[in-house]
């Protein structure tokens, strides 16, 4: 029975990784669809929203079943605790991808106001952070997580940079207000996804070492 538990736990970890890839992909593609005004791509992201929610439900259900049936201890228990938190963060990341795709579609009829250099840069940063968290979850090598706090600070700085840039455009011409409000929201979503990557890193650190840390 214990062998069965470990097989099931391994399968669960693999599914968390799949969910992680999906969430990251949704976020990444949503920003790409925004920048390139590619409606087809935005629709493809939107079509994934049920898939990620289903994964969230099914992984949670299976994790709870494992807890109930086997009452795991030590690292096995920490792994399940980590999984239960991670899927919530990943579901949120996927949902932000969906939200950005909805905005991308709305903004597709008119050209972008400025070059929007910061938003794709934020996209790259945050997806790299999520990637590193997922790799650490898979390999249990937490060394790449050490830089997350610093990277999250940069992400915050970029978010305020987008904010200031947008406020300037809004003041220049009130017609820009709607679009710029959307840009501000997107920057805010990306910054929030960075926070989720940090929270995941905290849980992964706990899973691997048993120690709780805080990444601010």
């Amino acid at each position, binding site marked *: 029975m214990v062998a069965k538990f*470990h097989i099931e736990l391994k399968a669960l970890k693999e599914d968390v990784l799949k969910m992680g890839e999906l969430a990251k992909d949704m976020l990444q593609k949503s920003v790409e669809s925004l920048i390139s005004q590619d409606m087809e791509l935005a629709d493809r992201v939107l079509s994934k929203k049920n898939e990620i929610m289903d994964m969230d439900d099914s992984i949670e259900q299976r994790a709870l079943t494992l807890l109930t049936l086997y009452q795991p*201890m*030590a690292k096995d*228990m920490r792994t399940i605790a980590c999984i239960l938190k991670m899927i919530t963060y990943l579901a949120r990341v996927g949902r932000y991808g969906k939200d950005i795709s909805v905005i991308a579609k709305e903004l597709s009829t008119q050209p972008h106001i400025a070059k929007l250099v910061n938003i794709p840069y934020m996209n790259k940063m945050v997806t790299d952070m999520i990637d590193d968290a997922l790799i650490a979850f898979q390999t249990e090598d937490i060394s790449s997580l050490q830089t997350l706090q610093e990277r999250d600070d940069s992400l915050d700085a970029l978010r305020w940079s987008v904010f200031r840039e947008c406020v300037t455009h809004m003041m220049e011409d009130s017609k820009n207000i709607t679009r710029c409000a959307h840009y501000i929201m997107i920057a805010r979503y990306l910054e929030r996804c960075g926070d989720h990557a940090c929270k995941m890193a905290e849980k992964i650190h706990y899973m691997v070492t048993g120690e709780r840390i805080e990444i601010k």
Partner: protein
Amino acid sequence: MPRSDCIIETVGLNLWYGENHAIIDVHMKIMRNKVTALIGPSGCGKSTLIRCFNRMNDIIDNCRIEGKVFFDGEDIYSSNTDVVAVRKKIGMVFQKPNPFPKSIYENVAYGPRVQGINRKQKLDQIVEKSLKAAVLWDEVKDRLDRTAMSLSGGQQQRLCIARALAIEPEVILMDEPCSAVDPIATAKIEDLIDDLKRRYTIIIVTHNMQQAARVSDYTGYLYLGRLIEFGETRQIFENPQEDLTRKYITGRFG
């Protein structure tokens, strides 16, 4: 002088059954009014270890003990120790309920009687108090004269706990007290342990790790006669430091 938080301490404890070195250099401290659980695979020495605490191993042929076991600062293996007095202070409950083939009342009154208490009123008091403490009173108060054998397994086990409590021990050793009873009785005994620790120090041997995690404050993991790891229960089950403990509690053992 204030009493120390540590009630039992073993120092370099070794035990042999003939050639078999069953307990190897165990140093551990049992804290007063806490529940300490001993876990480990079958044959690792858990039961042997707790039997050292009230000198139950004395009755086993070719059993040899070295090292010290201090109870309230006094070495219970010193030559001038009164073994009966030690066993009075350190009671024991076994794996299989073993009531005497007597009435429920007599089972509990037996110990006090042996100690010379004969007044009916006093014995009635002790029986009621002990059965209440073992949370059995309400179930048996109307049939105290019935044979203890008529009780269910779980009730018999609680009767054995009441019998242990009747002589007012300070420490109760429990050797897998729930392994022969059903889940409902197990839950009752676990609740009882939680309740008893306010007045007694409890040392419990269990094969059920979830039970150890639920009832104990401290946990020791034994393997092949050695105390591999000892610490606060939460730490042992959440983040054990020793690889052997980790493997055992996550079922990756052997």
